[in-house]
């Protein structure tokens, strides 16, 4: 019960509409509509990038032209016109010496989100690298992190200040040739976060970024790169919101993680992009490539995601378990309501010996939405004694939604063990009756049961996120009781 976060949940639940649908009126510095080599040169010039960065972008762009948009996912959407998108929108002012200089409206945005920079600085000990429309606005706690040798900055800064690291690791996990959306991102990415944890350092803070799509008709293409050197540890949180807009906005991000020997990276996401209204109009198209490489022995990468937003989610955070004894984990709660479509899951590629992976996926579909789990577990011949356990459960609320499971399991090694199990069911009448009998109304009872159902995953979230995630679950499911 304590997980329901008090009595105000009912108010929140009944308010119903997208809570973060406000639009911050900041002057934008935008690129002309459309995508050509000139657009890429424009972005690169705006960001005063070195020559090698431009070359990388152009190479990716040329490759992208040769690719076809993937069609295999269980999602349907009108064709995206890639020439009708503004590929770059930056808040106009760029240099901030202190918080005072930041556009007050921007600060207000963060306040509404509940992540006011100065408040959080003191209270939560979270370092936030806030990204609005793809440009990093202000990074906090640089000093504390600096003392430990941790680099946490915007991607553009890293390109200027740490070119050797960027050159070494960018594209090493998700090459620009990887897929259609990765190629597009590599060509036009505007900004993102870069994080480097040196050898033996346990990052003293939970690192956090907020992404927020703001200006109309802008695609959001951010790029995150996390490098954890030997025996280091970092917990990284990503939160997303987008204002309410009728036109669909495209979001194609890349997240790359590299973990060396004995390093551990924990990556948590709460995704709350605008899902479109009750009639399925508007919303964000979320096409994301996230992949972690357990490069060193005994390294560990753990993905935790709570997906409640986006009109379309196409996202498969993956782990490539290259080092011997490395561990990959994936915990996911994906909720869809109204006309949302989600095709999400993970890939666990076992390459090294004694590698282990765990997949726990909880899908909840309501309204007229479709929610698919799609995952791959691949055991390569060298991965002796590797082990995988997957559990994918789906919960259906209502008779007009769909819940689907598409697991792919490929084993090439006779000493490995792979287990997959999945169930699909609805909330049992017995559970509901039990709650109602004790004076808990239907809506609240469903919230309670759903939270219990998702608890296994929510428990993996850092404290700051867990509370927010539970509220999000309730909000997303509002009106789904039929």
């Amino acid at each position, binding site marked *: 019960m304590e997980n329901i976060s008090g009595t105000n949940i009912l108010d929140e639940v009944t308010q119903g509409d997208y809570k973060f649908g406000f639009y911050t009126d900041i002057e934008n510095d935008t690129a002309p509509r459309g995508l050509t080599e000139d657009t890429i040169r424009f972005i690169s010039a705006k960001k005063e990038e070195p020559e090698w960065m431009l070359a990388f972008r152009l190479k990716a762009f040329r490759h992208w032209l040769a690719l076809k948009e993937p069609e295999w996912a269980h999602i349907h959407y009108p064709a995206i016109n890639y020439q009708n998108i503004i590929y770059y929108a930056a808040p106009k002012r760029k240099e901030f010496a202190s918080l005072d200089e930041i556009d007050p409206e921007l600060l207000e945005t963060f306040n509404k989100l509940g992540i006011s920079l100065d408040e959080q600085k003191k209270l939560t000990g979270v370092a936030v690298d806030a990204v609005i429309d793809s440009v990093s606005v202000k990074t906090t706690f640089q000093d504390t992190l600096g003392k430990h040798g941790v680099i946490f900055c915007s991607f553009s800064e890293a390109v200027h200040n740490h070119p050797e690291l960027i050159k070494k690791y960018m594209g090493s996990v998700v090459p620009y040739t990887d897929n259609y959306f990765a190629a597009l991102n590599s060509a036009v990415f505007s900004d993102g976060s870069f994080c480097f944890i040196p050898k033996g350092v346990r990052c003293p803070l939970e690192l956090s970024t907020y992404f927020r799509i703001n200006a109309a008709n802008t695609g959001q293409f951010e790029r995150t790169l996390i490098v954890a050197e030997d025996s280091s540890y970092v917990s990284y949180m990503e939160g997303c919101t987008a204002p309410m807009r009728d036109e669909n906005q495209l979001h194609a991000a890349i997240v790359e993680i590299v973990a060396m020997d004995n390093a551990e990276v924990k990556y948590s996401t709460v995704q709350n992009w605008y899902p479109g209204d009750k009639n399925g109009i508007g919303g964000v198209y979320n096409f994301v490539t996230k992949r972690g490489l357990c490069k060193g022995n005994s390294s560990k990468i753990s993905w935790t995601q709570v997906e409640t937003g986006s009109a379309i989610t196409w996202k498969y955070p993956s782990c490539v378990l290259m080092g011997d004894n490395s561990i990959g984990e994936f915990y996911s709660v994906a909720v869809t309501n109204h006309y949302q479509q989600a095709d999400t899951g993970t890939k666990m590629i076992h390459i090294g010996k004694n590698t282990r992976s765990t997949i726990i996926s909880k899908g909840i579909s309501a309204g007229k939405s479709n929610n698919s789990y799609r995952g791959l577990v691949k055991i390569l011949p060298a991965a002796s004694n590797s082990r995988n356990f997957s559990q994918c459960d789906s919960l259906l609320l209502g*008779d007009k939604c769909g819940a689907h*499971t598409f697991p*792919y399991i*490929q084993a090439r090694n*006779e000493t490995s063990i792979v287990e*997959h*199990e999945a*169930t*699909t069911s609805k909330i049992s009448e017995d559970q509901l009756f039990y709650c109602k009998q004790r004076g808990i109304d239907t809506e609240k009872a469903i919230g309670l049961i759903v939270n219990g159902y998702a608890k296994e995953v929510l428990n993996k979230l850092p404290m700051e996120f867990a509370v927010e995630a539970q509220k999000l679950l309730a909000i997303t499911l509002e009106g789904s009781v039929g």
Partner: protein
Amino acid sequence: MNNSPSVQEISLDEMLVNQFDAHFELVSANDIPSVTALRKLAMQQFLLTGFPTSSDEKWRHTEIEALTDESFNYFLEPYKSERDIEDMFRCEVHNFDTEIISMLNGWLLDKKSGFTTLPNGIVYGSLRYAWKHFPEIINQHYGKIADYQTNGFVSINTAMVQDGVFIYVPDGVEAEKTIQIIKMIDRRESLFVQSRNLIVLGKNSKLSLMHCDDSINHFMSLINTVTEVYVGENAHFELYKLQNLNDKSGLINSTFIRQEANSTIKTNTLTFNCGMIRNNISVDLRGENAHADVLGLYLMDKKQHIDNQVYISHNAPHCTSNEKFKGILDDEASAVFNGYIHVARNAQKTNAYQNNNNILLKPTATINTMPFLEIYADDVKCSHGATIGQLDQEAMFYLRSRGISSSNARLLLMYAFAADIINQISIEPLRKRIDDMVKKRLRGELSVCEKCVLHCGMPEKEYHFDIDLSKL
């Protein structure tokens, strides 16, 4: 007359299309108009798609090109066998009396001139005569259950098939004996063979069918079979498929079953040997309270490849389905399993279960398993599971510690794994025989028999492991 094509070098699909154009009259000689019309539509579809390739999502892990790129002979008329037919088909399972339908190289053997009508009204015989004799049944069901657009193999089968088995069980009739279809390939050249079966069960009827695919020599063949089964209200149907072909052969087996209300089916696909097998099993549960058991066992070694595709479509409320496939893979064998449970929006109170277990014995063996669920109704219970592993080391230790040799212990454990499926065979003499076959297969003693799949040449005795079970 053997009108074998003179040019051997052209590809299989091209050869078939040429034959279709050149000899359409011969192909459609026994048709009624609806069948001819369907042939034309199916050929148009085939011209559009051709044979599937491994770049198609549904065929991803099966290098079907290895077969379709080969050149084969295709005959539009039956021909004499080089062996004594009576001798080939004299085998029977001990204590197991069946009605035997013999097919050689894709053609029904004509010894019983068309049809057999049993006293209780069951009719079985050659499809090539059934088209004209039973136009109502044909018009009602033929080509209606198997969609010719499913894939290139079903298209070309619908377009060009000339023979197969037709079985009709009238309302309220329960077949006393199992009907057994024995299909053999015996030809000293590479053959492409097609056959088509239509099985119709009326209301409250009952039938069990055994379908054996065997090859007798070691020439390559590619068999493309399409089976349509209509199971009427409250009827019960059982299908046992035994597949034991040589290592070079390919078998494409597409079975489409449609079930009406309160009907039950059980299919059991037992694969012992074959170069490349693709089993498509598609069950359409369209009447309430229908139940389907879809089971399978595959024991593959060498470079064999098996691909089981099971599509169960729940289209009515209160239906249940149970899908279970188990496999043991040795050497460089590879297996694909793709189970698909589709629950339509109105199919409330569905209960569907799907499971696939695999044991890999060698580092070179491969398994790709894809247990899919696609669910649009909320009041359902659907679960699936898949495991890939090896023999239980603790069980192995237990057996070894009691003085059982490692090879025998392995055998026993593999047998125990497979027994789960074998024990669900409800015809006792058949269960015993299959049990023996599995034991032999696991010991590597079961090869393509000179006689037939049932090893009638062997003395009739039970098969035991050389294990003193009293020690356990």
